[in-house]
């Protein structure tokens, strides 16, 4: 049987709660109201999530708003602290064991060198008043580059890849359309060739034609650069297009996971069935 080869990211029993919990909800068997404790109103945003991400694959996460998808992504990018859990990056030789426990300086290094994040809202990923080139340079400097010529070249390269006209590279993203901002954000996230890319609802709110551009770009990055990705979306059509494997989240828990076409054509869980029957 095949061994668990080339895992690039591994999450075990990851949880995030907002609130301190009480005697009721600390008891595992206590029934929550959706994901909230009815007694002390602690919200359990992510509950005991475990999964592996393999080299070069795109893993999809679907679920309704409030199911914990974005919280999960933010914990992996260290935007939010985890309450408990293990986070291992087996391909990163500079760090051993649970990366939730390393120093904040080390976390910053991991974030700059191993990960790229594209947020649903470009404001979170870009400095809107700085030019696109500067935005990309910021990420490159953070990951150790110092040569201005090389950084500009790299920026040009990636802006071209995402179809941003180089005539506008010195313009600030605040002047750009939402789709263009999203593409600059992707260019920035990719510019230092991170082996892992986290994409949170990247096509939500884009018009169909720009959406197709972005999807095409994501596939191309996967094919040409072998980047592993986690794609969060509530749009099952996008998940179908992009993802090899998919996890379904509900109230902070992973309720079902499998090969994408199996999830879509033979959903097992009641909620997944509802979700799939709702596809237009």
């Amino acid at each position: 049987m095949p061994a668990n080869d080339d895992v690039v990211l591994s999450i075990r029993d990851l949880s995030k709660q907002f609130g301190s919990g009480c005697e009721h909800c600390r008891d595992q068997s206590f029934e929550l109201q959706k994901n909230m404790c009815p007694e002390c109103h602690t919200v359990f945003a992510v509950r005991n999530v475990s999964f592996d991400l393999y080299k070069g694959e795109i893993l999809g996460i679907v679920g309704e708003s409030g199911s914990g998808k974005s919280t999960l992504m933010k914990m992996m990018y260290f935007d939010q602290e985890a309450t408990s859990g293990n986070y291992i990056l087996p391909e990163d030789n500079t760090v051993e064991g649970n990366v939730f426990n390393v120093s904040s300086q080390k976390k910053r290094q991991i974030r700059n060198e191993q990960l790229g994040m594209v947020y649903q809202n470009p404001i979170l990923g870009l400095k809107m008043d700085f030019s696109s080139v500067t935005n990309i340079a910021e990420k490159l400097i953070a990951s150790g580059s110092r040569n201005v010529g090389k950084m500009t070249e790299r920026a040009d390269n990636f802006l071209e890849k995402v179809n941003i006209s180089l005539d506008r590279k010195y313009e600030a993203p605040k002047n750009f359309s939402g789709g263009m901002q999203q593409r600059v954000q992707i260019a920035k996230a990719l510019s230092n060739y991170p082996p892992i890319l986290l994409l949170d609802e990247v096509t939500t709110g884009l018009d169909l034609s720009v959406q197709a551009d972005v999807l095409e770009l994501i596939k191309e990055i996967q094919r040409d650069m072998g980047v592993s990705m986690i794609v969060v979306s509530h749009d099952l059509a996008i998940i179908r297009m992009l993802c090899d494997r998919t996890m379904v989240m509900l109230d902070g828990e992973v309720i079902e996971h499998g090969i994408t076409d199996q999830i879509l054509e033979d959903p097992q869980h009641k909620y997944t069935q509802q979700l799939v029957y709702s596809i237009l």
Partner: protein
Amino acid sequence: MITINDFSKSFTIHHLKQTREAINGVSFDVEKGEFLGIVGESGSGKSTILKSIYGTYKPTSGIVSYDSEIFGKVDLHTISDRALIKLRTREIGYVSQFLKVMPRTTTLELVINSMLEMGENKKTAAEKAEETLKHFDIPEALWHNYPNTFSGGEKLRLNIACAVVKNPRLLLLDEPTASLDEKSKLKVRETISKLIDNGTTLIGIFHDLEFMDGLCNKVYDMNSKTLEERAI
């Protein structure tokens, strides 16, 4: 190469509080290089079997044993998702009646991409893709068009081209000739017989039995649940 033993599949539909049995008690085996045809009326579960072998459906019970090149003997029912994806890219192909495409991907790119996924280099992928498109009579003028503008027959031929170009060890064909005219059907037949010559193992569902005459060496009848050997 592939053994199905006492296989059954039912679907639980939660909102109707219903469990519907699609198939039960199916057993057959296919040796390397054989071509098994599955027959039966519509709704008898022909596609269910193919989809369960491919992993689109989760079997309810039974064994789907496959002799793979990369992993050796595996049960496709219990194998990890990751391993199954590997088998799909390298060994097991599936041709359905429908073509699913990425938006704004041209015909040529579509075929090339299915090779690149296997790790083929760009040059070889492009050459093989062109060769395959030519073989399936998809005119060069259409290579740079998006396949959603194609006729039903063209789509189907493209679908088969995408699977065949990867030279799979096991190819699953779910009514690949359903909407084809005689000429295209002959093309498909020609390709299948070439695949058989190359040692590809095939399991297929076809509506017209005549089409399979002289190609299948085994036929499984869903209604009587019997396997019958045929002389070629």
